[in-house]
């Protein structure tokens, strides 16, 4: 490892450093605010350090990692999301009596894990990143120990995740066995050698897809998602929905681009089936669901399906579409869960549809933000979600994936129903004129933290929805290096 390597890994190093520091701080004395500040600052610092790497072409750190535009963008995305989530978490945990400090520790670790994922070019680093992410997630999900749902979610996630990573590992092993290398590039070269893929290799890929599919919670590996989403604390749910999935998707794209998996009809077929299944199952499951967190879980399943459509386009435009959609999706999801978190109280998260009845007349602004988020999920204009969906459709039409595209259209109609349903509930007339809830039971600073976050998210949402070309420039600028 040379010095320049370190420079290029600066964001990760900063985060690691932050982890160590915060451990020490906890050892010295527990203080929620300090921990929060450390986390936030480190995220910011890490993000700032990215600007150094803005115009890195493609810097590989043999053999494990590579730092390129794609990586930079995804890391940046992950960091910002993590930052926002931590801001939300602050207010959320402030109301709770558990020991809050380790939470940030785990958050940082998980973030590191997913950052590693998106820049890894080697099974080893892939595996490491994935496990750092997962193991810290186990803890995060079950963080509120006193709620049995939390534990249930934790144990479910743990067993299933381990189970799936066993598949992943076995798959890797087989691939390794048949190609003799664990570097993506090497594998690509090896594959290029074969006239047709050997059974071993295909089995390997198949098993790996199982592992990856689980993390992405696509059908048929999606079943854990609703339970975990429901059980985990709202901010953590947001984290799972965004950061962890983003990381995995990033590595998936990188791997596929590297080995150019789109040449193999089998793989394409598998992903097509998975995509369609996810869209349908996700939307149908959410249709009459009355638990908001579960609705969001199912909708995230569907959205992963949408993402796969663009992913299957398998060209520069596809990658851009995925990335763009991911950004929109991150903003929206974090926003949505932010609202959930904000409305939650000591005992339970605000997850039942009833908790949102007539929200517009009780807390207009919160309701407005939530509405915006839902409309964005539904892909209605003036929101980022619309542009994202448009981009995906464009990518699909461009490569004539008519089946997928039509399915997407159909599904977003189904999806419309349950998003609008939540909105309708919020807009209902309050039965008894419930006066505005007593606010400011939180200290203003905290309140500001979460409200500010939501406002930022809403503004971003609309900004991207109305003027997407800024974001487009950034993406297109950074992703030129992604596609070989």
């Amino acid at each position, binding site marked *: 490892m040379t010095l320049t390597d370190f420079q290029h890994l600066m964001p990760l190093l900063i985060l690691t450093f932050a982890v160590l520091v915060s451990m020490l701080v906890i050892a010295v004395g527990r203080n929620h605010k300090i921990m929060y500040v450390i986390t936030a600052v480190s995220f910011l610092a890490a993000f700032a350090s990215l600007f150094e790497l803005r115009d890195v072409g493609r810097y590989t750190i043999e053999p494990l990692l590579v730092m390129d535009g794609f990586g930079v963008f995804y890391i940046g995305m992950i960091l910002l999301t993590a930052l926002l989530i931590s801001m939300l978490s602050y207010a959320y945990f402030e109301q709770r009596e558990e020991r809050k400090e380790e939470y940030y520790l785990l958050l940082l670790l998980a973030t590191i894990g997913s950052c590693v994922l998106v820049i890894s070019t080697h099974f080893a680093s892939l595996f490491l990143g994935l496990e750092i992410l997962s193991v810290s997630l186990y803890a995060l999900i079950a963080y509120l120990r006193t709620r049995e749902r939390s534990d249930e979610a934790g144990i479910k996630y743990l067993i299933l995740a381990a189970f799936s990573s066993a598949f992943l590992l076995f798959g890797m092993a087989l691939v390794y066995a048949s190609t003799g290398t664990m570097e993506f590039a090497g594998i690509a070269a090896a594959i290029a050698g074969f006239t047709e893929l050997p059974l071993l290799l295909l089995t390997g890929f198949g098993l790996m897809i199982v592992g990856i599919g689980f993390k992405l919670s696509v059908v048929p590996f999606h079943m854990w998602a609703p339970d975990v989403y429901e059980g985990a604390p709202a901010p953590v749910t947001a984290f799972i929905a965004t950061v962890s999935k983003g990381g995995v998707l990033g590595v998936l794209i990188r791997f596929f681009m590297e080995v150019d998996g789109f040449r193999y009809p089998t793989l394409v077929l598998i992903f097509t089936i998975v995509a369609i299944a996810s869209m349908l199952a996700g939307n149908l499951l959410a249709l009459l669901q009355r638990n908001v967190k579960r609705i969001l879980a199912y909708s995230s399943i569907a959205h992963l399906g949408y993402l796969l459509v663009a992913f299957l386009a398998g060209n520069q435009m596809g990658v851009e579409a995925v990335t763009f959609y991911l950004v929109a999706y991150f903003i929206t999801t974090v926003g949505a869960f932010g609202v959930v978190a904000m409305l939650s109280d000591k005992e339970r998260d605000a997850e039942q549809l009833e908790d949102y009845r007539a929200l517009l007349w009780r807390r207009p602004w919160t309701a407005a933000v939530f509405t915006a988020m839902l409309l964005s999920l539904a892909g209605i204009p003036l929101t980022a979600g619309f542009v994202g969906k448009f981009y995906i459709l464009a990518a699909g039409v461009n490569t004539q994936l008519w089946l997928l595209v039509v399915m997407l*259209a159909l599904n977003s109609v189904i999806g419309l129903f349950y998003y609008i349903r939540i909105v309708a509930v919020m807009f209902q007339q309050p039965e008894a004129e419930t006066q505005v809830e007593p606010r400011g039971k939180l200290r203003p600073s905290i309140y500001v933290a979460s409200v500010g976050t939501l406002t930022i998210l809403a503004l971003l949402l609309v900004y991207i929805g109305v003027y997407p070309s800024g974001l487009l420039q950034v993406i297109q600028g950074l992703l030129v290096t992604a596609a070989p």
Partner: protein
Amino acid sequence: MILVWLIVILMVGGVLAWISGKVNRTLPRWVALGSVLAVFVLTLYIWMNPLAIVIGSNQSMGHTWYMRFDQPWIPQWGISFSLAVDGLSVLMLLLTFFIGLLAVLISWREIQTKVAFFHFNLLWVLAGITGVFLTMDLFLFYFFWEVMLIPMYFLIGIWGHENRRYAAYKFFIFTQASGLLMLLAILGLYFIHGNQTGVYTFSYFELLNTTLAPEAARLLMFGFLAAFLVKLPVVPFHSWLPDAHSEAPTAGSVILAGLLLKTGAYGLLRFVLPLFPMATVEFAPWAMLLGVIGIIYGAILAFSQTDLKRLVAYTSVSHMGFVILGVFSFNEWALQGVVMQMITHGLSTGALFIIAGFLYERLHTRDIRQMGGFWSTAPKMGVIALIFVMASLGLPGLGNFIAEFLTLVGSWQANNWLTAFATIGLVMATIYSLRIMQKIFFEANRMEQPLPDLNAREMLIAIPMVVMILWLGLYPQPILDTARPSIQEQLQAYTEPLIEQAPIARMDRIEMEAIPEKTFGTKKPKEAKPSSYLQIFKSSN
């Protein structure tokens, strides 16, 4: 730049209205009224002194656009914020804002809850519709197409009647589903054009020059049709309309009937005809058949409805049948008829909904079985209602007659049998229209409480509409002249460049000549030139 103002004023006005609700309850109404009035005046100004400019490849027709605004929006995708008005758009805008004014006025007493938010939505719907009528960029078109739905959804869902949520869902999902298909078609067109020319753009004027393989053209056309036929609506895609109309508040129904349906017709004229000339010709007989089915089916259903607003809703289904019938007969008579139909139907049906609203305010029911004999207690309302009922059955001297007659004359040139059946629709129109009069204003009065007649505000709403419908019926020439150039433009693909035809815009001849001239001996009639396409079409069926 004025064009942008049209939209901006409405949107800002909407936000202001929402905010001003904090100050007091009536302020939002005034804000809304003011902003709609402003844009109305602006549009009148545009109409009165058009500064003609020529755009894109249309010099051949000398198709003059009044005004244009262009501003790159998402250059990466060749999307630009491009607005333009020609005769057609101007007419549609005038209609939009006229109806908008009425909508604000009729809500004055009817809407008492969440006044501010109501007017926010109202103005944003209008803004969306304005955008649809103005935009010359297909992405932008879809954008506005969707934008107008959300506020409409809220108008129905929050201020509607008993069954509002169901209606709102239905409306929203129908239009969304169809809209997405259109989006796909737009994208398809975009890439085909891009691959041909290397220029990836959503600009309407560019895409007009796309040459399409028949197969592709057919598919894309169906994509567009999906959206427009659902919006129009054409049987069998109409079933959202009765619910939406009958559950929406009066203003909502008026806007739905008066404007949202027209966006469908507008789309057909503006996009489907010029973009897919060949495909439409193939599809024409079926489209016309759909139109006729719509006319008759709507009329039959209208007859048996007992909910007044639902009845009127079905009459719109019937009337919109004429639109599609006319659009697909590809000649100027029919298209002028269609344009007239869009306007006059907007007025007459709007008026009927308004009357339904008046009655509902007074009786709190829409069930005509409980009404009757109101003429004796409310003669003014009776007269107004009579006029618009007569309009809806196409009585000569009222606007709808011109519309329907022109449409039928045109479609007769294209297809005799279907037109004959469509004409039967006129009889059915008589049947349901007279039923309205009879059940509400004639026969014995079953109500015990007295029915107050129209007050000043309501007269203020009704009188202008009466004047308009009469004017359109007796001297529609200004409208026709305004629409002519754009219509000839849309028909370009179907006809040789028309050499013939009438002096352009005789704005000065508004009132009848003071000194009538008399002539001796027969005057030679102008020869009507059936366009070359017609013979082809006649031979084909």
